[in-house]
């Protein structure tokens, strides 16, 4: 009897975790840099190459991924104890696919131009390994709030990389930023654009440089 009371007291004394405790901050910030899904884990490369020709579709893509990622993590995490283990991948895919379809339908209704540009790729968010990877590796085993933080961190980690790639690809490949002709504006209308950057090769080059900078800054050494 007395030992039971003691145990209860101990549980009560344990302080509740802060809204953004050190551990949670780490969940959020890690995927932005040290554990970035694209540049460190090399996931989601397909769409990082495909949609990053211009900034505008890239932003839409980034927002869509952030949305799908956060809500699929949240839903998966809430029902994680009820998901039958044997069909869990199917359940996760169904959640992702439904959210992606929602995004695609909204895009078709409110930004038809972008829907036409991105059509196939919004659908292909379903196969973005980052999302399924985070659901399986994190949301299936953690509480909803932590999972949302993790999803947010990972999707923003994905977003900033593809936006950086898109910025340089549009600047060097088409000579513009958000369709605004930069070089003409500063009086360098003869500035040559490089068609290499309109191709996926350009994305590889920029991704490579990004990873190089990141690794030399973080002191990463290949084992």
């Amino acid at each position: 009897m007395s030992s039971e009371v003691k145990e209860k007291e101990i549980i009560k004394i344990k302080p509740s975790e802060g809204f953004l405790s050190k551990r949670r901050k780490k969940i959020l910030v890690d995927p932005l840099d040290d554990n970035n899904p694209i540049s460190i884990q090399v996931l989601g490369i397909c769409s990082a190459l495909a949609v990053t020709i211009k900034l505008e579709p890239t932003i839409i893509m980034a927002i869509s991924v952030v949305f799908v990622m956060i809500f699929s993590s949240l839903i998966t995490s809430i029902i994680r104890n009820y998901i039958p283990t044997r069909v869990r991948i199917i359940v996760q895919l169904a959640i992702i696919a439904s959210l992606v379809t929602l995004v695609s339908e909204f895009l078709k209704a409110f930004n038809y131009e972008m829907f036409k540009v991105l059509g196939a790729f919004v659908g292909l968010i379903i196969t973005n390994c980052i999302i399924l990877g985070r659901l399986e590796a994190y949301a299936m085993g953690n509480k909803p709030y932590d999972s949302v933080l993790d999803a947010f961190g990972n999707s923003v980690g994905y977003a900033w990389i593809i936006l950086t790639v898109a910025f340089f690809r549009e600047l060097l490949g088409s000579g513009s930023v958000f369709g605004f002709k930069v070089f003409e504006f500063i009086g360098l209308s003869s500035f040559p654009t490089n068609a290499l950057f309109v191709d996926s090769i350009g994305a590889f080059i920029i991704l490579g440089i990004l990873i190089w900078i990141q690794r030399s800054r973080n002191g990463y050494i290949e084992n």
Partner: protein
Amino acid sequence: MQQSNTYIIIFTALMTIFFGFILSITRMKLEPIQDIQVEIDTKKKILGAVMEISSLSPEEILSTYNKKMKSVVINIKGEIKDSFVAEEVNVQKNFKVNPEDRQYPVFMYSNSGESIDAYIFPMFGNGLWDWISGFVALDNNLNRVIGVSFDHKTETPGLGARISSSEIQDRYKGKEIYDDDGKLVSIFMLRRENNDNLSKHEVDGMSGATITAKGLNNMLTHYFDCYRAFIEEKKLENTLKVSYE
């Protein structure tokens, strides 16, 4: 924890019903908005084949369309079918039936409101991944291309998807579908990019998108053939008119 089969079946069934319900509700609510977007987009493409429309707002597109466009529906023999409205004909659905049984919409652009300046022919075909479609505008002599506008469902961005860019579409301007002997040849996109010495029936290709280009060529050849009766009838009318004058 291993769950029983019954649990798994019930769980997946409930999940399917739940997501199906949410998705169908969204679809129902958004469909009217999407339909308007599609209508504006179609009219934009029809107009875009004959005039510069990038500066027009959606409302202006609809009003310009109503002022300057006339349309008829014909069959493969070139006979006008009054019971159909051209804007409501689904070219995609018609593509799937025999050419003889299809309805073919033809749009006529008239800048002044009297004589017809351009004939616009909708087309449909298969690209690499899915369908491609297009509107081809011919001059009032039904030979020279004034402009085209192509669209696609899911051609590869950066490769086949370029057919919907003005860069590719401008290549068709000024090309002719009849040769000097009056034979219908259609227009062909070549393989590879930066070809020299293009004839008046050839346009430069898109590197990395040979199958999409092939699809375009098949679409143009097939549909010019389907519209041939109408085109030749109008050409005849034109020559008669000239000889009367």
